[in-house]
């Protein structure tokens, strides 16, 4: 099987629908199929062993994704924000890549003989003769996706054809989109949700509209103008959208679905979004690069049920990642690697045909029974809802006690004077690690460190009270909404930082 099969099915069914772009002048399914069949010939003729894409969202991305599959070579969208050196390092890890690059980033690619601009690739693909698909094995790599590397050297995740096809046919109904549906894609091509979005929406028959550079005003404008019916955002994007709206509910009646994921959603942002988009159904999607995107979903019905419930367990589900999608098994394991008793916290392990767990240069990290360690701390409630409490690597060990930063962050974000908060562990001679809260006050508000510590102490066990509270203007995030804890720790460790913290 090949991911190319998904486009073949779509092209044979959706002859009158637009696949990509604006309603007025977008690319139809047949035109996309034609571009892909010609594009595969361009890739074959180049004799490249893989295809890299350095660019923004747009028609080049999904056509390269599937043309690479038809040509039988892996596809790697790279982070266009990387430096020339950063890109060179990743390109060196690919097999003789054909590098397709947006004109704007051409200067960042040097020393490669197989380079084409995205514009040149699209024109060549449209004109080249169609070539038949190369036979690929189920376990062949379809997409090699580099993790964001927030904790070290980026890892190359091997997503095989069988992983991606299983994800699509396991979680999406063919032709399930109504003819008028359109999704707005704001995540960049190098994010696994962009791969998922290209494949699932093509398969469902839903038009994809791209917002190449996220901006909240542009997002609201394009949703209205293109009559967008669904959108996927990361939490930092939703936070900026609700800030842009202020207290005025959005006037975009076409928007029926807002999916969010990619990082933890602050409860305060979600609550504001629910008020400002009263007509939209919200979907929390939890997944990892290694799991071919979404493995658990909190549906619009789950959101409504949680909001309307007086049962604290049901109410709490608003902050959960929902329940596993079909085909995914989950298990929460303790420090002894054995499943924990019901409801206890531990590391989340997952299994299923969409789970890869294979890294370039490392191989498979699945255990003997096919389970993948997510390195996320989680618990499962009595209804099977999954609660993700952050990365195991971020766990603070203070005086022998394991403390999840998320637990304290969730309290801090509800402090009336704070806009954002992060909690990290810093080396401490007495406790091993001490808890440092880095907080961002709301505009015009004053944050008082003692009062903030008292606020946390009143709501959590004493061992959770931050030892230090440090005030900052903002926190560092990746463009895809992941908090850069490493940078926070580096900032706190720098000699300059010693002057600014409010020490207890």
């Amino acid at each position, binding site marked *: 099987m090949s991911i190319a099969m998904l486009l073949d099915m779509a092209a044979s069914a959706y002859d009158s629908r637009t696949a990509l772009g604006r309603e007025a002048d977008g690319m139809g399914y047949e035109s996309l199929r034609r571009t892909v069949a010609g594009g595969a010939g361009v890739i074959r003729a180049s004799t490249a062993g893989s295809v890299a894409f350095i660019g923004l969202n747009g028609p080049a991305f999904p056509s390269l994704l599937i043309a690479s599959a038809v040509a039988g070579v892996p596809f790697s969208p790279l982070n266009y924000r990387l430096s020339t050196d950063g890109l060179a390092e990743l390109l060196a890890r690919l097999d003789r890549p054909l590098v397709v690059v947006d004109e704007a980033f051409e200067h960042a690619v040097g020393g490669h003989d197989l380079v084409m601009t995205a514009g040149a690739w699209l024109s060549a693909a449209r004109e080249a003769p169609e070539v038949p698909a190369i036979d690929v094995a189920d376990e062949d790599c379809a997409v090699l996706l580099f993790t964001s590397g927030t904790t070290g050297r980026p890892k190359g995740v091997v997503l095989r054809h069988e992983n991606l096809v299983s994800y699509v046919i396991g979680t999406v109904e063919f032709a399930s989109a109504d003819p008028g549906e359109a999704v707005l894609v704001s995540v960049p091509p190098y994010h696994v949700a962009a791969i998922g979005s290209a494949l699932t929406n093509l398969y469902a028959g839903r038009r994809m509209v791209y917002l190449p550079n996220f901006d909240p005003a542009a997002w609201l404008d394009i949703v209205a103008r293109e009559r967008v019916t669904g959108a996927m955002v990361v939490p930092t994007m939703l936070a900026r959208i609700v800030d842009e709206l202020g207290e005025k509910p959005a006037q975009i009646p076409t928007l029926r679905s807002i*999916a969010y994921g990619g990082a933890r959603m602050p409860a305060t942002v979600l609550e504001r979004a629910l008020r400002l988009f009263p007509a939209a159904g919200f979907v929390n999607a939890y997944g990892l690069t290694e799991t071919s995107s979404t493995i658990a979903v909190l549906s619009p019905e789950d959101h409504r049920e949680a909001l309307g419930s007086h049962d604290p367990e049901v109410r709490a589900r608003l902050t959960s990642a929902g329940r596993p999608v079909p085909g995914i098994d989950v298990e929460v394991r303790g420090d002894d690697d054995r499943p924990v008793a019901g409801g206890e916290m531990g590391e989340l392990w997952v299994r299923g*045909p969409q789970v890869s767990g294979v890294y370039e240069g490392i191989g498979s990290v699945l255990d003997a029974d096919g389970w993948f360690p997510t390195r996320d701390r989680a618990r499962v409630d009595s209804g099977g809802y999954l609660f993700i409490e952050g990365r195991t690597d971020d766990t603070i060990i203070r005086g022998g006690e394991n403390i999840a930063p998320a637990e304290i962050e969730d309290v801090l974000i509800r402090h009336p004077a704070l806009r954002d908060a992060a909690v990290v562990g810093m080396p401490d001679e007495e406790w091993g690690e001490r808890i440092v809260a880095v907080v961002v006050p709301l505009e015009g508000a004053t944050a008082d460190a003692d009062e903030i510590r008292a606020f946390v102490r009143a709501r959590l066990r004493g061992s959770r009270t931050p030892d230090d509270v440090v005030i900052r203007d903002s926190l560092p995030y990746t463009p895809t909404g992941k908090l850069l804890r490493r940078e926070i720790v580096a900032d706190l460790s720098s000699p300059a930082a010693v002057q600014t913290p409010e020490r207890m």
Partner: protein
Amino acid sequence: MQLKIGARYRSQVCQTEIIVVRPLPGEADLTCGGHPVIDLKETPAAGLSLKEGADTGNALGKRYTDASGTLELLVTKPGQGTLALGGEPLVLKEAKPLPASD
């Protein structure tokens, strides 16, 4: 034949192509249009034709299941043949779509 998850088969007597979403354990007598389905890459035997009563057809992108609900196939290319297991026609599986998440 032994069905494997993700395996692709074709009909010998119509355009039908399928992929196995959920296999059955053990031997499976899977037919389309009254004749055994074959591997997608194999060539159909000569002289076969659609059997009478096995021509109710199937639909693109739809899931089909057996009476026990264990086997699940997805039609990747539709045709005129009836998909059947051990002579019993497979039935269309009611879809319960998940909300779009990416």
